[in-house]
């Protein structure tokens, strides 16, 4: 078990493409870190650099007390689970798991024990151990791939989008299994995904990457409640946060949409930014249906989507044409054109600088 320390990591490909622009992350012992971001953001590259499958252009990687920049993948004391599982198709499940141990020269009995133990943890039967990967279902292959990682007893687990080849139902199930497994074994893990739900549910902390830069690093709740930038705000949460162009009032006490609808802000928080153009962000679930109070704003509804547990209402405030999504729980009988009385608590309003796209306060 070990902590992992990434310092000022940069990656430039031979063709001059810069994939990673200086990433610093400290991963504590036993922590589950999720690298999340859209495709092409450099998250897989970063993971592969930790694994030793990509060279590091600049910066240092430490696993435990060792600098691993120039070590072979096999010497880094890591194990990796690949997106397409990368099982050896001609070997049976047992041999797939045992291969790395055989190369390391472990005794036969030791290999037997470790594979047996891993198979027990993953609930693989003896019957499945002698099968070839192609005779297994997607979920079973995924288990074998994890088994191959477990038998190595590594300091760090690396997961490269391990669930994206599975169907939706299995993905939820395997997500739970991975979470349980990591908690049980307590091994430091780095997990790459583009799915924010996976990221939120699995990670102790999340690293949101965009264009090779860390946008924000924090616990799932920190990211949800205090997104540091427009990108994080839009990426975390489903349905995505509503954004609208708006302006702070003279005293900085409220924020006004273009059509005139204004929302109160926490007192004194934005005094320094008075009179400034901002991007307003409100989460769909933070707009609450209410029928009394002086902070009601009426939404002109245009469309309602019924999901059963929730109802998503689309509409706009006043003459401002920006489409807003509101998430109401339960089934609501809402017709297009109805005005919808809503309120939002001041502390649930997020304001961003439209130019730098960073959070204001």
């Amino acid at each position, binding site marked *: 078990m070990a902590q992992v320390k990434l310092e000022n990591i940069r990656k430039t490909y031979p063709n001059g493409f810069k994939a990673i622009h200086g990433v610093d992350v400290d991963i504590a012992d036993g922590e589950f870190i999720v690298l999340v971001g859209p495709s092409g953001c450099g998250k897989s590259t970063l993971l592969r650099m930790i*694994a*030793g*499958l990509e060279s590091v252009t600049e910066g240092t990687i430490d696993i435990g007390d060792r600098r691993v920049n120039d070590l*072979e*993948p*096999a*010497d880094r004391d*890591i*194990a*990796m689970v*690949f*997106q*397409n599982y*990368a*099982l*050896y*198709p*001609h*070997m049976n499940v047992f041999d797939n798991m045992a*291969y*790395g141990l055989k*190369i*390391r020269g472990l005794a036969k009995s030791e290999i037997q024990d470790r594979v047996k133990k891993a198979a027990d943890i993953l609930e693989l039967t003896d019957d499945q151990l002698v099968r070839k990967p*192609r005779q297994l279902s997607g979920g079973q292959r995924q288990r074998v791939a994890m088994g*191959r990682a477990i038998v190595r007893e590594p300091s760090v687990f690396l997961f490269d989008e391990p669930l994206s080849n599975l169907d939706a139902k299995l993905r939820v199930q395997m997500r739970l299994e991975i979470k349980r497994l990591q908690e049980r074994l307590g091994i430091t893990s780095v997990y790459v995904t583009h799915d924010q739900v996976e990221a939120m549910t699995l990670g102790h902390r999340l690293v949101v990457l965009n264009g090779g830069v860390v946008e924000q690093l924090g616990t799932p709740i920190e990211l949800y409640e205090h997104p540091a930038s427009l990108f994080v705000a839009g990426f975390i949460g489903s349905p995505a946060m509503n954004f609208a162009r708006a302006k702070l009032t003279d005293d900085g006490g409220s924020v006004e949409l273009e059509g005139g609808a204004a929302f109160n802000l926490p007192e004194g928080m934005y005094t320094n930014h008075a009179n400034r153009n901002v991007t307003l962000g409100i989460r769909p679930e933070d707009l609450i249906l209410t029928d009394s109070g002086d902070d009601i704003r009426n939404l002109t509804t245009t469309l309602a989507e019924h999901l059963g547990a929730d109802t998503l209402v689309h509409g706009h405030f006043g003459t401002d044409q920006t489409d807003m999504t509101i998430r109401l729980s339960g089934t609501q009988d809402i017709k297009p054109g109805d005005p919808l009385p809503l309120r939002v608590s001041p502390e649930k309003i997020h304001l961003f600088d439209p130019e730098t796209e960073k959070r204001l306060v």
Partner: protein
Amino acid sequence: MIENRPIITLISHVTLILGVAIIAFPIWVTFVAATHDAVRMVQVPLPLWPGDQFFENLEQAVVRGIAGGGDLGVGMMLLNSLAMAMMIAVGKIAISLLSAFAIVYFKFPFRMGFFWLIFITLMLPVEVRIIPTFEVVANLNMLNTYWGLSIPLIASATATFMFRQTFLTIPDELLEAARIDGAGPMRFFKDILLPMSRTNIAALFVILFIYGWNQYLWPLLVTTEQDMYTVVMAIKQMLETAEQAPEWNIIMMTTLLAMMPPVLVVIFMQKLFVKGLTETEK
């Protein structure tokens, strides 16, 4: 296609049977000729039903050879042919596997250049480069040796190309998984690539064995001693009798013997052969 039209079924069967008959008839004639004595074979019309001399002819062909043929049976020549075909097939596969491995998995300067260099040798079969190749072999004192028979035919662009294509279909993640498991390049080659190319190797072996076995021009050039002759050459030389009539029964028996190994290789490796050429799932 599931269709039930008796006329079409009949016509296609007749066509197929005709085709099989056309291919099989000469082989039947060969077999029949190998079972008669020399006297019967020079009488007209040629026999169409087997005689009773099969084992006598077999013995003469293998052990004694034809009269005036230096008293050498084709037994030795069969062994020579077998050695040559095996060396060519195994040698070609080994060299092609290694060169494809180098081209696909290693980064070195002029990698693609080397690939194309190998590839354009497709345009230079033995027949085209026969004189310079002969000189090289002669200078290396390899005339009348197995090495001289096989080495010039071993370099193979087709097999290299085929293995390259096979390796390219193997996902990169397998290589990466093997690296994480601690497998070095040769270990990866032996433990992952070789077993995964098993069917391709079998398919190529069949093709190359037959290619090597059927070589005629090259052995004719590099062998001058009878104990290095291959069986395919021997058949031709049996026909060159000065005054006597050719001993057709023995010649046909030799032909039969020469046909057997390729047929056996195809029969026994057929399953792998078809798999190797058609299998796409890796």
